[in-house]
Each structure stands twice: as structure tokens, then as C-alpha cells.
């Protein structure tokens, strides 16, 4: 499991409650089925139930020590945001393109950081051919994990992401 070096991923504070309902209704053709995997049984609430209906099989078995959702909260009472301060990791959610696991950091009752890990990834192998375009420099694709502030990318709207995030938020509220 590799930890994302960035925290572009966000969180659902208000609208997160809608997510559980979405999970039970797989959308045709776009690979939105999600299965939540959670070894401590305390997770996910409504999101977990929906996931069981939608996905059935939980995939990507992992060593329990790695996949046990973690909660590292302080004893401070919930602040005005309604969340306990600390670090909360959601359940692993699997979907058509892989799996994802979201960790949130709560400071003063509000989410100050979100990161995701991707327990399984299948780098797509692509054939390569040459194509020269005027004005553009062609180069090889590199994969870096550099020290960065934030990340630009196509919108993260996958139900798997939302489901894992929701279970992390549930832990912060518990």
C-alpha cells in the first residue's frame, strides 16, 4: 500500500449523508459498483449496507494488520464542527478501476486534510507509437512522488472514494 503524497482529495461534511443511498444503485455501464471492505466491523454505517447490496463480493484481500481501519483521536470533546480531533481512516472501497482508502485529519472540529491510499493499482500497459505535433515537446511519461502542495487531476467523483470518505467521517463522529 502506498500513501499518497498529496491531499487534493476532499471531504463530505454536509452532503456526505446522501452517499449511502447512491451505493445501492449501480449505474449502467460506468463501473460504479462499490464494495466496502472493513475488518473491524465498526465501520461505514449506511454506506456499508448499500455497498453490500451493490457489490456482493469484497475483493482484494489484504493482511488484516494493514486493512484494519485506524482511529487516532484525542480525548478533546467535539468542537463546533461536530467531529473529534484526530486522524481517521475509512474502510477500503473497491470499484471497477481499483480500490481506494481515505484518511482524514480533523483539527478544531473541522476537516483540515484528506489523503487517499490505493491498496491495489494496476498500471495500464500501453503500446507506444510516435506522433510529432508542431509546437509540442514529446517526452516519456514519468511517475513521481515529489514533495508537492496539491494535485491537479480529473474530478474525483467515484462512489468508492465517497464511500471510504464517509466511513472515515463516521469514525470522526463516533
Amino acid at each position: 500500500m502506498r500513501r499518497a503524497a498529496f491531499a487534493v482529495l476532499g471531504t463530505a461534511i454536509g452532503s456526505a449523508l446522501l452517499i449511502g443511498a447512491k451505493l445501492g444503485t449501480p449505474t449502467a455501464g460506468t463501473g460504479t459498483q462499490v464494495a466496502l471492505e472493513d475488518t473491524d466491523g465498526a465501520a461505514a454505517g449506511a454506506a456499508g449496507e448499500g455497498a453490500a447490496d451493490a457489490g456482493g463480493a469484497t475483493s482484494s484481500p489484504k493482511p488484516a494488520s494493514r486493512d484494519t481501519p485506524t482511529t487516532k483521536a484525542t480525548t478533546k470533546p467535539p468542537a463546533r464542527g461536530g467531529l473529534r480531533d484526530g486522524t481517521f481512516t475509512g474502510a477500503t472501497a473497491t470499484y471497477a478501476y481499483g480500490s481506494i482508502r481515505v484518511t482524514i485529519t480533523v483539527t478544531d472540529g473541522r476537516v483540515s486534510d484528506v489523503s487517499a491510499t490505493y491498496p491495489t493499482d494496476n498500471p495500464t500497459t500501453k503500446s507506444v507509437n510516435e506522433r510529432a505535433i508542431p509546437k509540442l515537446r514529446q517526452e516519456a511519461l514519468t511517475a513521481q512522488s515529489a514533495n508537492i502542495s496539491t494535485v491537479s487531476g480529473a474530478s474525483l467523483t467515484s462512489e468508492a472514494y465517497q464511500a471510504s470518505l464517509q466511513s472515515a467521517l463516521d469514525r470522526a463522529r463516533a
Partner: protein
Amino acid sequence: MGTPGLRRVEQVMGTPVSVHLADPLPPRRLAALADEVFAWLREVDARFSTYRPDSEVSRFGRGELSIEDCSPDLRYVVEACADLWRETDGYFDAYATGRFDPSGFVKGWSVQVASDRLLAEGCGSHWINAGGDIRARGGPRPGESWRIGVRHPWQPDRVCWVLDVTDVAIATSGTYERGLHVIDPYRGEPAHALTSVTVVGRDLGRADAYATAGVAMGTAGLRWLADLPDHEVGIVTEEGLCYRSEGFPALPAEPGPRGVHAEPSAWPARTRPPD
């Protein structure tokens, strides 16, 4: 994190929005500025949501509201969408679904407005990241620039470029996160040739629209993006080729363990950069 300032993440407009304010202002002031950013984005969400039948944009879409009766904000959005439709040869189309849906422009535009307001209120070092589209200004500390990654399409926890920037709008569209969802309006089928398109400019609404249009154009988008005036582009094709314009603010790939070339065995030597 080691970086001074305030960080906050909230879900708005159906996407996670992260805000980092880096100016050395009192914590209470920074919190108030962050509150203003999210209050504005939630206001935009309510007024421009096509999911809410009573929103201003829905009423305009149904013809219940004439352009003269629209708020200045909605008028600006309607006109910008018309401009972008022309500039992109119709590939950015707010009427693609059969009714007016400016969502593809509104997210970037609203973040741009939030960033402009922060600057006007004395917070000139910040970034706002709305679901992967970013407006950044200043840097983490005086004299420093932001280092912003562009996500690697096939390795979600890696980046394929690191951009060194101080005052930019960065928008990325792609086919990798939601599958093939960008439709080529002329062929009526999903575009797939360009896996990831990043556009760097000054206005996030425009940059986002150009990136989406580039993806929709498919292979033809390479030339169109290369010719965009006043914008820099970085593109990854479905074959795993990268293209970038001369002024694209990417740092050289870091050597050693922190900068690993992707799947060396899969890439013929001629496509790898000189070491």
C-alpha cells in the same frame, strides 16, 4: 505539514474543495477568510445548480427568466459559455444535454472569483483546489512558489509533472477517473485519444473549459491545444505519450528514489528522456 497558514476541506458543488491560506495573518482572520470562500461557493451551488428546479439557472433554462432579468453573475456565465462555444469550435457546449447546464464553467469561474476576492482582501498567498482544478497565488512563504502536481493517469498516488508556479489557474480533464464520459459532440461518442489534458492559464473557468474541449476533440485536440494563445498545456495520450508546450511550467523529473520512471520495461528506450 510545516507550512504556515490554514488548511480546510469541505464538500461543495458535488466535489471536494481544499483551501490553503498561507499569508501570515492572525488565525481568526484566516478562518474568517476561509468561511467567506466556502460561503460563496455554497451560494454559487444554490444559484447555479441544475439539480434544483428553483435555482436561478434552472429558471433561466426553462425560459422563466429572461437574460435581462438574470443576475449579473448569471449573465456573465451565459455570455462566457457562448464565447467558449465559439472559441472551442463547439466542443465546449453548455447546451450539450439539451438544456442550459453551465456546470463545466461555473466550478472554475466560482473558484476564480473566490481567489480574486482573497487577493483583494489582502490574502495574496493561497490556493483553492476544487476537485482537481486549482487557482493558486503567491507561495507557501514569501519569495517561494507553489509546487503543484499533475496526477499520473494510471498511478493515482503519483504525479507525472510537478509545476512550479506563483499565479496560475490549472485545470485538468481526463478520461481516467470517471471512465469515458466526455462526449465528442460531432460524433456522438465518447472521446478517448487524450487521457489527460492540463491547461495552465490565468482564468480557471476558461482553463477548465479548454481542457474539457481538448479531451472531447480527441487526437485533433493536440494541435488545437498547442495553438491556444496565452495558455500552456500538458497532455497524456491513451498510448502513454506526453506532450507539453514550451512554456509549460513543469520541473525536471526528480532523479533517484523519489522520481521513478513508470514501468521501465513497458517503455522502449527511445521514448524515455535523456538521463
